């Protein structure tokens, strides 16, 4: 079984296997308002990843014990479709999706003005239709656009991006091979206007310098994706439709 270092991930010319530069991200497209039944929605394609987010609410929070007297709660469900990966995934929640849902909810609660909606709930449904490393970031980006599309007031958007390390080199935006055989992965959720970080996970091995470089790449990519997010939201409301 191949592990760290067994698979060549950088070419002799210094480019990556898919031809990208070290600090180049995969192409990103975003469309807002794609689901007619939802109050807000978005589809994000990031490389071969496809993430869809739907927002319902604010609505009454049930059961009552989840209510907060001073603010809304954000109920996130991150789910991978059974056909989204190479081997079929059994439908239903697993430990991984529960954890991602939890930290994604906490990140979103950091930007949504939840104090505007005491005792209510905002439902955020993230569905991954195709996965190729980086689904939690694509899902987070989609959720942020869907919340804005739903007209829910926020301090800022959140952009999900990741950097990592392959063959002792820090690279921006790992693809599937790099994620499987690389040495580290650092997914973050960045507030593009304030420069704050609302989502942070990491696994693998990074030196302090490598961490700083990975974060630098992440901020650079976040600025690029932010432009695409804003463009998607503007397109949605151009021409006076809806």
């Amino acid at each position: 079984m191949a592990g760290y270092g067994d698979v060549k991930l950088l070419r002799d010319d210094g480019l990556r296997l898919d031809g990208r530069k070290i600090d180049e991200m995969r192409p990103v497209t975003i469309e807002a308002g794609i689901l007619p039944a939802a109050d807000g929605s978005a589809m994000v394609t990031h490389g071969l990843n496809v993430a869809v987010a739907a927002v319902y609410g604010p609505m009454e929070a049930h059961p009552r014990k989840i209510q907060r007297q001073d603010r809304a709660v954000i109920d996130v469900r991150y789910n991978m479709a059974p056909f989204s990966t190479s081997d079929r995934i059994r439908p239903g929640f697993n430990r991984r999706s529960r954890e991602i849902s939890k930290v994604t909810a906490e990140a979103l609660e950091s930007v949504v003005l939840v104090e505007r909606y005491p005792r209510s709930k905002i439902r955020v449904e993230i569905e991954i239709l195709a996965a190729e490393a980086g689904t939690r970031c694509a899902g987070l980006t989609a959720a942020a656009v869907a919340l804005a599309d739903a007209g829910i007031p926020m301090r800022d958007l959140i952009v999900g991006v990741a950097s990592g390390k392959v063959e002792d080199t820090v690279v921006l935006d790992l693809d599937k091979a790099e994620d499987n055989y690389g040495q580290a992965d650092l997914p973050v959720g960045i507030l593009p206007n304030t420069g704050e970080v609302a989502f942070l996970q990491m696994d693998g091995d990074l030196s302090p310098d490598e961490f700083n470089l990975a974060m630098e790449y992440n901020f650079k990519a976040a600025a690029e994706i932010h432009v695409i997010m804003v463009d998607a939201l503007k397109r949605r409301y151009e021409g006076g439709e809806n």
Partner: protein
Amino acid sequence: MVELVPTLLRQELTRLAEDDIRLDGRGQWEGREVDLEVNCLYNAEGSAKVVMGKTIVYAGVKFELRTPWPDRPAQGSLMCSAELRPVAHRKYEPGPPSPESIELGRVVDRGIRESGCIDMESLCIVPGEKVWGVMIDIHVLSDGGNIFDACGLAAIAALRTAIVPAERFDVGEDYTLKVKGSPIMASFTRVGGRYVYDPSEEEELGGDERIHITLGDEGHLHSLQKGLRGVFTPAEFAEIFGVAHLRCAELRTLVANQEGN
């Protein structure tokens, strides 16, 4: 508690039905425009997306190697399931599969299975030891009414584009799954006292029982289902059966044209 909006909606739909008018202006047997896209999901071995009005459905096909059922040692297996996840509508709650989603998956499954469009013996690799399991997963992203027909259409369209990933499983070369014919579903809901084809979300909310008819290429029945509270007469069924033949044939052409692209 009386649900106020459905009560008012029901009255309005009944009033409109007297003049044979549908809320969105369609004729009684007129379907919404159907947009079908195939091979649209990167990790699925076959896939399709169906958009009908406000309804959006994806279907993906996956394969796995399994040991055959003891009583059918030389046959592969087929499973079709549908998920009505909370993404699709505010009325859907998280949790284990609801009776509604199980019914939906099983009705689509029966139509495909009983039409015989998949030759189960062609899915056998080593009799008694190794066969292909074909899994069709249907994902409803937006419920804008008549998800049954959308799911049935997405499932057969995805199946017809599926590539058996034999190389990845080390059992030979990849090949296109052989699918003979296209079972197609047509659904009717009683709205304001009479049946309509392809009910919208509002018509389902303010309507009564529904009937789902799946027809094969020869016009034979392969699956029937009556859902929700209500009764119908043989004469009513005869009428919608006739309509089903026409609508199914149109959708079968749509599936065939999509593959030609």
